[in-house]
């Protein structure tokens, strides 16, 4: 009995997910844009596939669309393009020996600069207060009053 319950539950879970392989066109379009905006248009000047008006970009978007309709996942599609064009097509460089420095650099730099700033502030937290501006003498006061009266 218990086993049957599990079977029913499993079915209840699986059937809708199988049906969902037929994905709605608007979802396909959203995914297409999401994938295309992360891939470079290889014949353009620093443009992604999503924004390029070049013929090649149009064909590649179509290819993405077809693959999505055929049920491929975004990861599979990306892998397909990387296999054909190399890492060059990825607008977000991967974390591999060549691209790692791009991801480490901002954090390393923030740590280094932040560290220096904290060190300087800690060192100077015990430095003497700077002399404050000299007090105004009676002559200065008189001058200020004269000026304000004129206004």
């Amino acid at each position, binding site marked *: 009995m218990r086993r049957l319950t599990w079977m029913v539950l499993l079915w209840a879970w699986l059937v809708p997910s199988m049906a969902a392989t037929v994905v709605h066109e608007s979802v396909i379009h959203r995914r297409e844009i999401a994938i295309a905006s992360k891939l470079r248009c290889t014949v353009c000047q620093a443009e992604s596939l999503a924004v390029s008006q070049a013929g090649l970009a149009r064909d590649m978007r179509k290819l993405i669309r077809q693959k999505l309709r055929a049920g491929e996942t975004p990861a599979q599609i990306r892998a397909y393009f990387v296999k054909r064009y190399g890492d060059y097509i990825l607008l977000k460089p991967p974390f591999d020996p060549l691209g790692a420095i791009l991801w480490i650099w901002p954090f390393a730099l923030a740590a280094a600069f932040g560290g220096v*700033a904290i060190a300087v*502030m800690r060192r100077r937290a015990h430095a003497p207060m700077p002399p404050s501006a000299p007090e105004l003498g009676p002559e200065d006061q008189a*001058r200020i009053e004269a000026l304000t009266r004129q206004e």
Partner: protein
Amino acid sequence: MVSGVSLNLIELGHFAAYLAFFVAITQALAPLAARVFKAPGLRTVSVNAAALLFLLTTVGALTIVYSLLTNNFSVLYVASNSNTHLPIFYKIAALWGGHRGSLYLWVWIMTGYAAAVAYHGRSRYPDRLPVIMAVEGALIAGFYGLILFLSDPFTRLFPIPAQGQNMNPLLQDPGMVIHPPMLYMGYVGFSIPFSFAMAALLTNWKSELWIGHTRRWALFAWGFLTAGIIFGAWWSYYVLGWGGYWGWDPVENASFMPWLMGTALIHSISVQERRRMLHTWNIFLIITTFALSLLGTFLVRSGVLASVHAFSAAPGQGIYLLTFMVVVLTLAFGLFLVKGGYQQAEESFISPFSRESMFIWNNVIFTVACASVLLGTLYPLFLQAATGARISVGPPYFDLVMVPIFLIMLVVMAIGPLVSWRKANVLKLRGRLVAPTLVGVAFAALVVVVWGPVYWTAPVAVGLVAFVATSIFANLARAVAQRRKQHKEGLAQAFMATVLGNRRHYGGMIVHMGILVIVIGLTGSGLFASSKLVMMAPGDILQVAHERVRFDGTRNVRGPDYTAVQGRLTILNNGAQLRPEQRVFFGSPMQVERPSVNSTPLRDVYVDIGDKHDGKWEIHLFVNPLVNFIWTGGGIVIGGLAFSLSDYVRRRKHAVATSGAVASHS
């Protein structure tokens, strides 16, 4: 067709430019000669030369403009960038429409700045002025060398063609007419603080004595650079037709890097003025900002980058610019290392809870931001040169890295102005942070509730914007209340007196508000935009977001120097008409899509028309929310900056008006 004197007037300009080159060299060498020959009189030569240099360069520029206006195709530059069909407006703008002319504009602006400093400094810092002018003269001579020997806009063409080629169609837009001069005013403006810093290092001039002067030049340049970047984004949005305004394109980055360092600089100078710290750091920032301006020029003009904004350049220019940049920067940083120590201030107390420490964090964040953009822009170039491997660093990378950095920046922006100089009262500060924090959290929660699962940056950005805005207004309200209590004034009077009395501070706060408005625009258009690309037959209706658009068909239209297929679309929600075009310019094989935009404060409907297949047209429709906030915010930033700088004018007038009274008292 022109003839006789007016045909050859360009030679006068050419002669003036050569003369200017030698004047610039004289300007650079005069103080040195004065020293070597022990003839102090020679020093003033470099100051007077600055005025002459500007005059000669202006003559050169005017002859180019005259040649453009009179269709003098015997000038190669005119023949390759202008033709008889081009509207007058664009004929003038053609001065910076091509590589050679725009480089000339660059130098023209530079000589203008130098002349302005010469005028400004003649009574304020006459003893150092010759050295400042010498540095400026050396830089100008360097650029003149490039112009005259490698990209001469005065070159003649024979036989004279009957018609010129067209100006790059993409540049035929009002946004593009304004964008380059603004940008150059910014880039070149940072050469003035640079010249001050070099002169100071060379002559042991304590930076306290000159940093105030450079602050105004730096602010001025920063304002133009900001405006230039915004106009560039505007042009990209309204002309390029990809539905976006900023693509982390290498050339955009090239203008953004000096902006980041310039922003650090204008904040850091305030610390030096108020607290006499960071003297050496400020000089470093000044040099770095100008270095990045030079780097930007090199990247854009050497041909190493492929970009929609870049110029196609002749060989040799890249080498020249690289050499020039390396020489200038080696000398500058070398001088800084050798003599920068002289500028070192006494170490004084810094509390972690003080305005100055907040400024230091501002500097840390902007420097990290700039260095990240720098690596992202240059690393692919280095990698390809060194190993041949090609990688791309594009918008997904920069968005991921830069957005968090900017969000942290907003936090500092909110807290900074609340913290007092020297040492803040922590309890008081805590009290002042309560209301802004609550408002910020409330707004962030609101975003989550209304829009549900959006990318995490949306609620965080909106929350931080609300946080900063509340803290600015609360601060203002406290100052006004204080004044009302002290001076027994009415609300309006106290408000005016407070804001007008401290223009520098409140100008800065207006700039901050402008930045917040821009952040709202970036968040809205970056995260909530939607688009569709479909084939449409006349009568078809397309819906994107809540906007329903009907395609009514096309017709052929004619512009002054192009023919176009014009799409006719109607937005059914408000009845507005959209007229995107696909233009074919005379003498250009390129088809140019010109989008059409219907803007309301809250959203843009943006449409492109593409090719025709089987009686259907390719229509690309975007609905971009809040894009207008970006342009409005840019306007607020510039307005705030002008308000802040107006303090200087007011003080000067005041000083003139009251100097008599002071003299009579003392």
